[in-house]
Every structure is written in C-alpha cells, then in structure tokens.
C-alpha cells in the first residue's frame, strides 16, 4: 500500500467525526425549526412537554451536544405534531361531549 493512500485513509478517518458533527448540527437546526413551527401551529393547544423539550434541545445545542439536541428536538417535533392533531380533532370533537351540544 502506498504511503499517500494511507495518508488519505488516515485523514478521512480523522475527518469523519468532524463531518458527522457538522451534519448533526444541521439536522438539529432543521428538526428544531420544524418542531418550533409545529408548536406554534398548535395555537392554544400547546403542550408544556413540547416547550420543555424545546428548551432542553436549545441548551444542549448551546453546550455543543448536538446529538442530544437533535434527540430532544425530535421528541419536541413528535409532541408538537400530536398537539396539532389534537387541536384539529378538538375543533369538532368537543361538541360530542358538550352538554347542550
């Protein structure tokens, strides 16, 4: 094996974690902004659990832990989407249990 190939191999292996890191940050930012907009879209059906995941994601990102930040943002997104579903469903569903209709 030539020396240059080895060098390339080595530098690639060194670079890999760095590029993964860069990817995690972008992934986080994308998921976080989706989560944020879904949370907003929940209108007056926002969940406190979404808010707290968003906060945790933000503080993890601030400390550079993008894996955790991404995980928290993903949870926030899932919760926010459920809260949007709840809002949409309740627009009609409340009438089914309301006394007097």
């Amino acid at each position, binding site marked *: 094996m030539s020396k240059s190939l080895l060098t390339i191999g080595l530098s690639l292996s060194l670079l890999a974690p760095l590029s993964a890191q860069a990817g995690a940050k972008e992934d986080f930012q994308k998921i976080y902004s989706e989560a944020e907009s879904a949370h907003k879209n929940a209108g007056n059906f926002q969940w*406190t659990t979404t808010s707290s995941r968003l906060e945790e994601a933000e503080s993890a990102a601030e400390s550079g832990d993008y894996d955790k930040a991404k995980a928290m943002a993903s949870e926030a997104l899932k919760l926010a989407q459920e809260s949007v579903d709840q809002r949409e469903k309740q627009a009609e569903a409340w009438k089914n*249990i309301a*006394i007097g209709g």
Partner: protein
Amino acid sequence: MLKAKIILVALGAALVVPQALAGATPEEDRKQAVEYFKQMFPEVPFEEYVNGQYALNEDRRGQWESLQDFPPYEFAVAEGQEMFETPFANGKTYASCFENGGIGIRQNYPYFDEDQKQVMTLELAINQCREANGEEPLRYKKGDIASISAYMATTSKGKPFNIKVSDDPDALAAYEDGKQFYYSRRGQLNFSCASCHVQNPGKWIRADFLSPALGQPSNFPVHRSKWGELGTLHRRFAGCNRNVRGEPFAPQSEEYRNLEYFLTYMSNGLPVVGPSTRP
C-alpha cells in the same frame, strides 16, 4: 382573528337556529347541565353545588367544616376591605368605579362589556379602576387583588349569580368560546375540563377528589392549603391546564375570561359563597 371567529359563530348560529330547542341557547345549556347533575347525584340538593367536592364526600366535608369556624382567609379579607376602603392618591376609592359602590355586586360578574367588546371579570374591573385613577395595576393570580376580590365577594354572600349573555353576537361568541374551551381536550394527557368535572365528578383521580362543574366559580377566590394563601379563579385555571401538560394562558387572557364567562353562567341561580377553602 376575532372577526373570523364572529363569522364562524354567526354561521354556527345560523345552522343551529332550527334546533334551538335542543340546547342551542346558553339558558338551555344551563338547564340541561342542572338536569345532568341531578340525574348523576339525585340526593344532592341544587344549592349544595357551591360546595364543590364537599357536596359529594362526607369525610372531606368534615375536614372542610372544621376549617370554616375560623377560616384561614380571614386576614386576607380584612386586608382586602382595608385596601378597598383606602383612597387612591387622587382621593377617590374603588367604590367610585362600581355600581352600588362595589358592595353586593359580585354576582353580576363576569358580564359582557358592550363598549369594550370583551368579557369583564371582577379582577379586570378592579385593575381598570386602578388605572383610571392613576394607580399601577395589580398582579392577577394572588395577593392584593385576591384579597380585594375576596372582600367584595363577602359583601355579596348568598346572592345568586346572575350572569347575562345578551343578544349581542359578540357576547354569545365569547360564551361559545368559553364553552368550547371547557369541553376541548388539551395537553399531553388529553383531558378537557369536562373530562374531570362533567364526566367524572365524585371520583378520585389519584389523591384528589373531583368536583362537579356546577358551582365551580361560586367559591372564588379560594384559599388552598396547597397555596397557603388566596388565589384567583384564573390562577386555578392555569394550574389545571398545567396539570394535563397543556400550556397555561395568562390570567385575564381572553381565553380565561371567556372560560369564566361560560362557567359562571352555568352557575346562575347558585349563590356567591366566596371566599372559601380547598385542599
């Protein structure tokens, strides 16, 4: 936003007019609610609903009664009276802002203010009175405003709630908005106010005993052992929302004022008994 809501409600009203007899008006809603609870608790007299969970559970009632001969809110009520009677910097008092000098009027709140086009709660009126007289508004959840509101409630003790939803479509829209809020499931736990207080009153949820919807606002402001002090109805709303993991609204937000409007209308005919004590 408000306009859109009005149009929607107007549409809704147009649609339900033919079924008006099936509970389309606030008064029909209220009558059906009274009937609903009468069937659920045939042995509980109507007037008892002001006592919430204590109307439904004897052991709890015993503990509550033992607090009543010297309730822990007595100091707050006395302070509320003192504040109510103390003139502002301009020499005027709260009495100048209210009908009958603010005495014996609790049962008329909240009402729909036709000029401001919004639900006027007693606490909002207290702060508007302060601001009209050059004073800083008070914070809405506890403290001075709860004490003043509690004092004003004592001057109305026993007077039946007389909440009016006029023909003004905005008033009806506010009522409907509050009604929708009460029955909508929210928060991660997916509970509505009604899940507990219409569908399951008289049952335990963990260590708490659920009160019926009827009469809920009539004992506020309330001294909760948990708080160790008086708190307003909107403080309680926020706590309930947070309990089901739903983001609470600001006290005196449009959401909570409309909710209070609906909920108090449901208690029409029941007397003002506030302040009271709760766990």
